[in-house]
């Protein structure tokens, strides 16, 4: 979502941000995933310096995808330094000792590849694809910046200007730019780690220094705190040896700080109103705290998400959009800054609508309640459950068949980083097998309680963007 590089207009490639399912080896083709589940062959190793390495060999397309995930993101960036994880992501493209010029992206591009980075809740990731013949060069460049990135004042100031422009274009000069993915979590959460402005208060960004960047790098961008995934056309033995040669000598890095990101249980409904000066129509968003990742209730919530907001038969859409005509769409989901798998900590399930002026926010909320209450009153039918599961599987499998393989490496890296178990990718379907209509009912009763909810109303303003300085002060005061 927040990326170092934005997709270019008129430029088809980067618009397909998902990737190729070609992770199954040829024999698997005869046995589609529906018969006996997804099976992506993989190899998982840990180097002596702690770097976790996942290799997923597959020769269907002659490219190789490389991803490095560092275990630091918005959630666990240092207090008082809002937006720093993202600012550092930008800085990490500014060169390294043995590759001062052309800097990273240019080096990859000139060999026919692409690369990007993004900052998410619990990690910052760097990922790219190159023709298979250039894999070693990519790994070398990635290792070089893990060891010795260029961090200097000139680059720092420039990237801060670029980030400021990124926030302008995505948030400050954009109606509805941030309300569900920045403002809503800020209201719904209590712990600073979950409740600060992830993009960064401009005053914090202005106050950040090169020394901060150096300290941040030394603490977090270490083999101990990283996962390297390589997927695509290569020989696993050879590539593992290459990885050892390039990454094996980088020092493991210091112990990681022990950070408490937990949220206290919510006891009463919260209600908040915000003004979006550029919006022309009001909006209403709701968010509920989620059950813990990996539990049976978590898998039930993923299917509840399918039932309520995903696809043409989503219940909130059928009611508020198709029956009542309150708005054009109901949006929402789990982890708006990623997907249902790639996070590690407290999470919200969110639904939102931009609605007509003539409809009172209470009326919209009443309809949300009607639909959600139905889930808490009686079990869903077997057909409803089966449909939710089918919709999930189509989304999940489709992610596998993208040419960049970014979807697959994202899951492998997340499961390695958070669970030390990338093989979970092959057991995802099992999690949904245990979900029954009764579990859906019980989960809805426990987690979709009004006391577990935050309501955010968006009110249109006067059409003038809040001046950057005023906005920064306002947010700092929250």
């Amino acid at each position, binding site marked *: 979502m927040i990326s170092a590089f934005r997709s*270019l*207009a*008129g430029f*088809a*490639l980067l618009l*397909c941000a*998902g*990737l*190729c*399912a*070609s992770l199954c080896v040829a024999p698997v083709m005869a046995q589609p*995933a*529906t018969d006996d589940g997804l099976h992506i062959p993989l190899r998982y190793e840990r180097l002596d310096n702690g770097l976790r390495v996942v290799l997923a060999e597959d020769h269907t397309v002659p*490219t190789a995808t490389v991803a490095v995930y560092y275990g630091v993101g918005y959630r666990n960036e240092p207090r008082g330094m809002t937006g720093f994880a993202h600012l550092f992501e930008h800085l990490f493209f500014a060169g390294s*000792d043995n*590759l001062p010029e*052309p800097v990273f992206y240019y080096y990859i591009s*000139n060999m*026919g*590849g*692409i690369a990007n980075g993004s900052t998410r809740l619990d990690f910052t990731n760097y990922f790219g694809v190159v023709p*298979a*013949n*250039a894999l*070693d*060069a990519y790994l*070398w*460049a990635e290792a070089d910046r893990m060891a010795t990135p260029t961090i200097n004042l000139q680059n720092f*100031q*420039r990237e801060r*200007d*670029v980030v*400021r*422009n990124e926030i*302008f*274009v995505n948030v*400050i*000069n954009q*109606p509805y730019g941030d309300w569900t993915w920045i403002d809503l979590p800020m209201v719904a959460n209590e712990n600073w780690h979950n409740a600060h402005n992830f993009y960064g208060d401009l005053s914090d960004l202005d106050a950040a220094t090169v020394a901060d960047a150096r300290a941040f790098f030394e603490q977090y961008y270490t083999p101990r705190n990283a996962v390297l995934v390589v997927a695509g056309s290569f020989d696993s033995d050879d590539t593992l040896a290459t990885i*050892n040669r*390039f990454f094996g*000598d980088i*020092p493991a890095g210091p112990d990681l700080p022990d950070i408490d990101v937990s949220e206290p249980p919510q006891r009463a409904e919260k209600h908040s109103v915000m003004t979006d000066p550029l919006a*022309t*129509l009001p909006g209403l968003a709701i968010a509920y705290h989620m059950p813990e990742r990996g539990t049976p209730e978590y898998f039930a919530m993923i299917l509840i998400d399918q039932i309520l907001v995903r*696809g*043409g*038969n989503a219940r909130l859409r059928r009611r508020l959009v*198709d029956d009542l005509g309150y708005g*054009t769409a109901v949006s929402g989901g789990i982890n708006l800054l990623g997907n249902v798998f790639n996070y590690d900590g407290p999470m919200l399930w969110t639904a939102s609508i931009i609605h007509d002026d003539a409809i009172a926010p209470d009326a919209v909320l009443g309809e949300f309640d009607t639909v959600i209450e139905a889930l808490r009153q009686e079990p869903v039918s077997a057909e409803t459950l089966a*449909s939710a599961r*089918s919709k999930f*599987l*189509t989304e999940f499998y*489709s992610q596998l*068949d993208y*040419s960049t393989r970014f979807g697959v490496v994202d899951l492998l890296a997340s499961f390695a980083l958070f669970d030390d178990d990338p093989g979970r990718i092959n057991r995802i379907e099992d999690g949904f097998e245990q979900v029954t209509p009764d579990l859906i009912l019980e989960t809805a009763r426990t987690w979709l309680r009004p006391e577990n909810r935050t309501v955010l109303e968006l009110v249109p303003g006067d059409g*003038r*963007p809040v001046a*950057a300085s005023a906005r920064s002060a306002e947010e700092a005061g929250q």
Partner: protein
Amino acid sequence: MSIRIFQAALTAASLALLPGLAGAQVSEQPPIGDPVPFELPETTGFTLDNGLEVTFIPFGLAPTVNISLQVRAANIDDGSQTFLADLTGAMLEEGSAGRSSDVIATEIAAMGGALNVGVGRHTTNISTGVLSQYGPDAVALLADLALRPNFDDSEFERVRANLVRDVDVQRAQPGSIATEAYARILFGPDHPYGNTLPGEEQLRGYELSDVQAFYATNYGAGRARLYVAGHFDAAAMEAAIRDAFGAWATGDADAAAGAPASGGPIVQLIDRPGAPQTTIRLGFPAMAIGADDAPAMTVMNALLGGSFTSRLTRNLREDKGYTYSPGSGVTWTMEGGYWTFNADVTAADTAAALRETFGEITRLQSETPPADEADGMRNWLAGIFILQNASTGGLIGQLGQRDLYGLPDDYLDQYVPNILAVSDEDISRMARDYLPLDQMVLVLVGDLAVIGDDVRALPEVAAAEVRE
């Protein structure tokens, strides 16, 4: 295991070579091996008696199938009724074959998918993606949507209100505001290309009878192509397609013509008080996608502004920090195309950003780019060609574009060789022939109190017709 032993040996060797260096890195760049050829997947096709052309693209490993019906009934056919194609497309989703949209949505969801209708400039795309075993059933539902819409009066007012709401939101976005004004200058008020958004009153004036007339005139098998990509049983899918689409009437032939873009020099300044950034559209007419110069234009675009390593990105973003999102691209139309540079730049840097942009164009026009820079761009375009084509969605998109513009069957096979054959001097020639600054079209959406004076003082702007 062996890897540990190997690593230990290597560590010792490194330390011996570079004593005392913490985290000693391998300083030498590894060589890049010989490229591995990439071949597009084999496709097969057939045509029904009514003219519907069908393409099968077996690809990928996921047990899913994507089905896409592309009908040449789109905004180009709007005439003066801007967005009538969008309203028609939206009404297709409101029930078909006498059944409600609710029932249909439930059926397709049980297959894992949803039915989507997307309306573009030249085609309306009716599509779905489902688990493979449901492919034939999904074909039948998709055909109902295209062939037997209910066009129920009771749904119409709500659907029209949805579009009014969408347009309202779009008009609040600086990018949409800029694009609307830009298209109007390039194509004028009398061609659908020049009208990207309808007026609210205009949209509220459309009736269901307008939708029915648009559908009757423009939808038919003779104007449609069906693409099936992914994992599927070809015989079962062919039978389902013949069954579902065989009775579709051929319909009227395409009637709407494209239009060439016209250049300036025209500058339009649109005030957005308080805007922290200025939204820029700068453009010129270009050639058609099938023209001899198109590959050279593609390389020129990548080098100047169309890649992350382009000169404009390097200058405006990587050197100056004026913007996060500079970019450029060629948009193809039925009668040619146009090249556009777009960016959102810090308000105070607007004139400086334009000065740099004009400077980069002028430099490329007068100096042949260095061979290594041009090589990098050609390599990059060849490399991303694989990524553009190695997915079901990408393949449908690429083949759909080839077919829409009537390009040769081997267009995609020849794409990379054509790109690699573009000479360094061709790149400069494209900038000279197609980016004449004295014929530019420039739209700026920003705070004119902040940017106006500086922008008007630029020589390139002073020489143009300035509209405010």
